[in-house]
């Protein structure tokens, strides 16, 4: 019997399925990319695993764990390819889902379109029942009407049903009763109750989250069950863990129960890798930019951990416009998506300002330089013309680049803007950087922090080319550029701990709190979290348990999520909780207001447990015999307002400990690192390049 020392990470994306196998014994890893098989995504995963096991001579019994992340469910939501879903709600409130918050996401567009509800009006049914704000029952649940409604929806083809009653967070009895009745009378119908998905006050946000869960649940159940079964059939007895949007892992049953928690699992894995890569060089406070062809994603890392948000928007009507999506109340690693990528298109707006993105040429037709029919100037075209990218070594030289085509699409725009082609190209580079820096600034302000305390970590194909001047705009001192900037997020899966987040609404003035009841609520959430963790990791040790609460001054609408001192709580805890809130408030907003009444809206428990097997070490850089300097080329720098001969280094030939000054270009297959004059570079033992900004 061989010890199960291999871990497998699986990341099923919209285009590719990435699989990595990692040997905890030797630190070796091997990876494989497979086209995602959309009709049956498990097929692609399995064929990739088969191949990796075969090529690396790994027996199924040697596998200790499998960890999985995917954007499949998120894509199904965006493309509206989920189940035909029905909604049963309180009588008189079937339109909550459609009415939403009544606020426009764009002020001046007379033809504005609200995001369409996932469940059309004819599939939303109100049933007589009513709980009041204090949790008492005003109207009992009409069981007969409920079953009739379910039967009617079923007859219309509904396969998945969301149940969300008003004030169910205060008293779940009607939703529980409805679930029991439906389970008994409607076998085969997939059910999602709001108290199990998002038991939080604010009916629109709760019903929205619940319907999203219902919409993707049949798909998720089918896929996860099929994957688990087929893995078992191959003799892989190791547990299958699924990554949640919050960057933690859970077990198959929990994932099938509330798949809405998995919506952002793909990007979450990426954020975890970024935090892990940065941590090795002391970057515990990071702005992690992952810049690809269409978008840049920004994660903020505090104390080595990506920050968590408790709500986000899915499937936006306008991708980058806040408020145009469907609200989701789950815990998620905070990722800010910016319409800034290599394919972002440059144009002049109505008053002649240079705009870059969010429209992107994507990879088809792609930038003009790809010579695939792209006719509009993009960021990548500008980067070629500025000498930042090497036409002979793009994607390791596997792609032919047409510089003349890039020139040709720039020229008319330059003429209209009254700029030289070079000034325009630099302008495009500068504006796209500003877009990323602005997004970071506003976001950091929301957290009440100063951007200058962070280091920038750059990943993604376009990231390292833009990172230096983004860091400069934000006033940062340090830039960390990991090797293989397109690091598969599959690796991040193996870093993740098991995790459970639970929430309950309290909605009480702090002075009127029944402390025994509050303690019981925390204890209930903790017990629930513990049991999910125990199911995820049967032989795990004691989990790390944290208590948090959403607290605000009476009259405010936004709560601050406050880390609380550990329990158990008694009436004597009042001052400590208040102090924790005030400390968080001052950190975010510099001063507390004259008001004194404070209320706790929600309480939260965050439980996590590291998974044995440890975080993977990233392979040490192979030292190569060739010299690190590849050559030199003319590169544009804004400091000189001119092109300068600039040394080009081969990333694969750099040795840890090497130090050199900018300006410099460092090339590797997937990306190119640009460092301006005044900057200096050091190759760390980890293989990261640490750039000090000039």
């Amino acid at each position: 019997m061989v010890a199960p020392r291999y871990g497998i990470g699986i990341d099923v994306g919209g285009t590719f399925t990435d699989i990595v196998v990692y040997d905890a014994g030797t630190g070796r890893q091997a990876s494989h990319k497979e086209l995602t098989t959309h009709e049956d995504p498990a097929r692609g995963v399995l064929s990739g695993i088969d191949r990796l096991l075969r090529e690396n001579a790994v027996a199924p019994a040697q596998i200790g764990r499998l960890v999985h992340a995917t954007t499949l469910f998120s894509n199904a939501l965006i493309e509206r390819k989920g189940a035909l879903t029905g909604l049963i709600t309180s009588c008189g409130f079937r339109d909550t889902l459609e009415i939403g918050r009544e606020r426009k996401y764009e002020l001046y567009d007379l033809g504005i379109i609200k995001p369409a509800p996932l469940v059309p009006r004819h599939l939303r049914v109100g049933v007589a029942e009513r709980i009041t704000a204090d949790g008492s029952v005003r109207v009992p649940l009409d069981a007969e009407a409920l079953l009739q409604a379910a039967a009617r929806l079923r007859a219309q083809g509904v396969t998945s049903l969301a149940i969300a009653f008003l004030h169910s967070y205060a008293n779940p009895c009607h939703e529980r009763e409805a679930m029991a009745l439906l389970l008994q009378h409607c076998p085969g119908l997939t059910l999602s109750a709001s108290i199990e998905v998002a038991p939080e006050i604010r009916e629109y946000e709760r019903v929205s989250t619940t319907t999203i869960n219902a919409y993707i649940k049949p798909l998720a159940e089918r896929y996860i069950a099929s994957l688990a079964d087929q893995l078992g059939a191959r003799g892989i007895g190791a547990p299958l863990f699924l990554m949640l949007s919050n960057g933690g892992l859970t077990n198959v049953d929990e994932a099938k129960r509330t798949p809405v928690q998995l919506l952002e699992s793909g990007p979450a894995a990426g954020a975890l890798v970024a935090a892990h890569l940065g941590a090795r060089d002391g970057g515990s406070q990071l702005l992690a930019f992952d810049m690809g062809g269409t978008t840049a994603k920004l994660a903020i890392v505090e104390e080595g951990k990506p920050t968590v948000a408790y709500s986000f928007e899915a499937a936006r009507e306008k991708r980058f416009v806040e408020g145009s999506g469907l609200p989701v109340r789950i815990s998620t690693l905070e990722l800010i998506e910016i319409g800034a990528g290599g394919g972002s298109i440059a144009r002049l707006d109505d008053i002649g300002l240079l705009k870059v993105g969010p429209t992107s040429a994507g990879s088809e037709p792609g930038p003009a330089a790809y010579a695939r029919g792209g006719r509009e100037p993009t960021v990548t075209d500008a980067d070629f013309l500025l000498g930042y990218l090497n036409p002979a070594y793009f994607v390791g030289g596997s792609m032919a680049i047409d510089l003349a085509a890039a020139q040709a699409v720039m020229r008319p725009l330059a003429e209209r803007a009254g700029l030289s082609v070079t000034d325009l190209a630099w302008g495009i580079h500068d504006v796209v950087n500003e877009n990323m820096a602005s997004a970071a600034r506003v976001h950091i302000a929301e957290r009440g922090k100063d951007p200058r305390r962070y280091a920038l970590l750059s990943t993604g194909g376009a990231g390292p080319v833009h990172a230096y001047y983004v860091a400069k705009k934000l006033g940062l001192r340090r830039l960390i550029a990991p090797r293989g900037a397109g690091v598969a997020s599959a690796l991040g899966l193996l870093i993740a701990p098991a995790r459970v987040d639970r929430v309950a609404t309290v909605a009480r003035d702090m002075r009127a709190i029944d402390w025994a009841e509050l303690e019981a609520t925390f204890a209930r959430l903790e017990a629930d979290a513990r049991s999910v963790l125990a199911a995820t990791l049967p032989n795990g040790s004691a989990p790390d348990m944290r208590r948090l609460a959403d607290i605000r001054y009476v009259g405010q609408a936004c709560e601050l999520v406050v880390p609380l001192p550990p329990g158990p709580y008694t009436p004597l805890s009042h001052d400590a909780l208040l102090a924790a809130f005030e400390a968080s408030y001052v950190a975010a907003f510099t001063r507390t207001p004259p008001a004194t009444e404070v209320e706790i809206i929600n309480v939260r428990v965050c439980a996590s447990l590291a998974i044995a097997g440890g975080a993977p070490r990233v392979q040490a850089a192979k030292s190569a015999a060739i010299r690190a300097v590849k050559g030199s080329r003319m590169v544009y720098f804004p400091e000189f307002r001119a092109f300068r001969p600039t040394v080009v280094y081969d990333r694969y030939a750099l040795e840890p400990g090497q130090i050199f000054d900018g300006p410099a270009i460092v090339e590797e297959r997937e990306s190119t690192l640009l460092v301006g004059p005044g900057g200096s570079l050091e190759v760390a033992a980890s293989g990261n390049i640490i750039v000090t900004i000039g």
Partner: protein
Amino acid sequence: MAQSHMAASNPAFDAVTLEILWRRIISAADEAAKALRRTSFSTLVNESNDFACVLTDARGQSLAQNTESIPSFIGTLPVTVKEFIRQIGLDNMRPGDVLVTNTPWIATGHLNDISVAKPIFRHGRIVAFAASTAHAPDIGGKVRSVEPREVFEEGFHIPIMKLLNEGKPDATLIKLLRAAVRTPDQTEGDLWAQITGLDLLERRVGELMDEYGLDDLDAFAEEILGRCERAMRSAIGKLPSGTYPFEFNTDGLDQPFTYKIAVTVAGERIGIDYAGTSPQVDRAINCTMTYTFAMTAYALKCALLPNLPNNEGIFRCIEVTAPAGTIVNPRFPASVGGRMATGHYLPFAVLGALAPMMPDRVMAASGSPLWSIIETGVRRDGKTYANVLFFNGGMGATAGNDGQNAYAWPSNVSNVPVELIERNSGLFIARKELRRGSGGAGRFRGGLGQEIAFEVISTTPVGIIFMAERCRFPAPGMDGGAPGAPGEVEVDGVPVDYRSNMVLKPGQRILLRTPGGGGMGPSSERDPQALERDRREEYV
């Protein structure tokens, strides 16, 4: 796109530099807005977004505002800052000063909004103003209703003065304010929330000027405003010159109000005159000129150049006039608390007048002005309370789309969740649904209004003040489209006079039906599939 406004008139500001500076200023305003909103006590600010942060140049010309700010304040704040400059004088302003006012005629049109501005200094000279307006949690006086006959009844009035003198708060002003309002902690707290936002905006502008080595913002302002002005002029210039009149009636008081507008296009300028509109009234629905201007400019921008940055450059080509003594330009001391009940009609007046020139880019009337209920009462613990609840009607249809159901227009005020309302209210909400059949029929259908049913469940009586409109005169359709359904206000099943304040006893029921939007084009031309969907979804 005309070539003329593309090239820089000042060579220091090319397309790139301008774009970067512009983005930086907007992101600074956004940062300030996030800070303000998150620390505010007013539900109207933090849940309903009733606030704005604006940066003006040293002359009070608006440069940029936070992305999500509401249209009215964007239009009024620059007027207020100019008035600060005129009355106090640049020479009398010091670093650390914060100026304040809520005078309706020079600020937003009613006392409830407090406007503040902070001069931003550089090398001893004022280079810009950070300014913001936010709806106060309470401003004293009669709880907002149409009943006051003069502004004196409407609450605490702050003439133009300094709230902070070189960083030091005016203790007398704060003491008087606290004594005059029902929620002293929250009202004062919100002033500090506004100041937090101004400080942040000031700091960011300073950093930006450091980075770009700017000594003032004048040249940048002139360049960006000039470009916006030229773009707006060129858009106006494409319209056929002439005068385009439009008029309609609204609910009014005992007698309907008449709104008369004449839009005059003269080359590259546009003039809007409201002569013939009803005279001012001794009820609090008069709309001061600042708000009239803001609502008018908003509609023009929607129709002409929706994607243009919103700033003084646009305002320069627009001249708005109204005879003094009308509901759209009342004389002091008219009561003005419910000015939106008048002001929210004006964007439709503008679009109605523009329609013959540009039928594809306007919108039929919406089920606005915004409706609200103000509920006052006594809690079990003996404390008094006041809740403000907002309800939107349906939007009007356009030449390409159905009107959106229950959506805010022209303002952008969101609802408060039912679950939050019921926590702190003597009202139980029995129903809140779309109102079937309320959208005006047409090639494109008007948006649906909504129906909200309440029951008084408190053990003590509850005071109710309605703000409702379009109950007698529905939202008209355009181009042959049908009007939306008129609004309805009932108590215990009987239509009531929604202009009067009421006291309701436990068990009494209120029903609100907000108006639907007007349709666009003849209903005979409606796409059969769309009609089929309307039936299936019970929209009609």
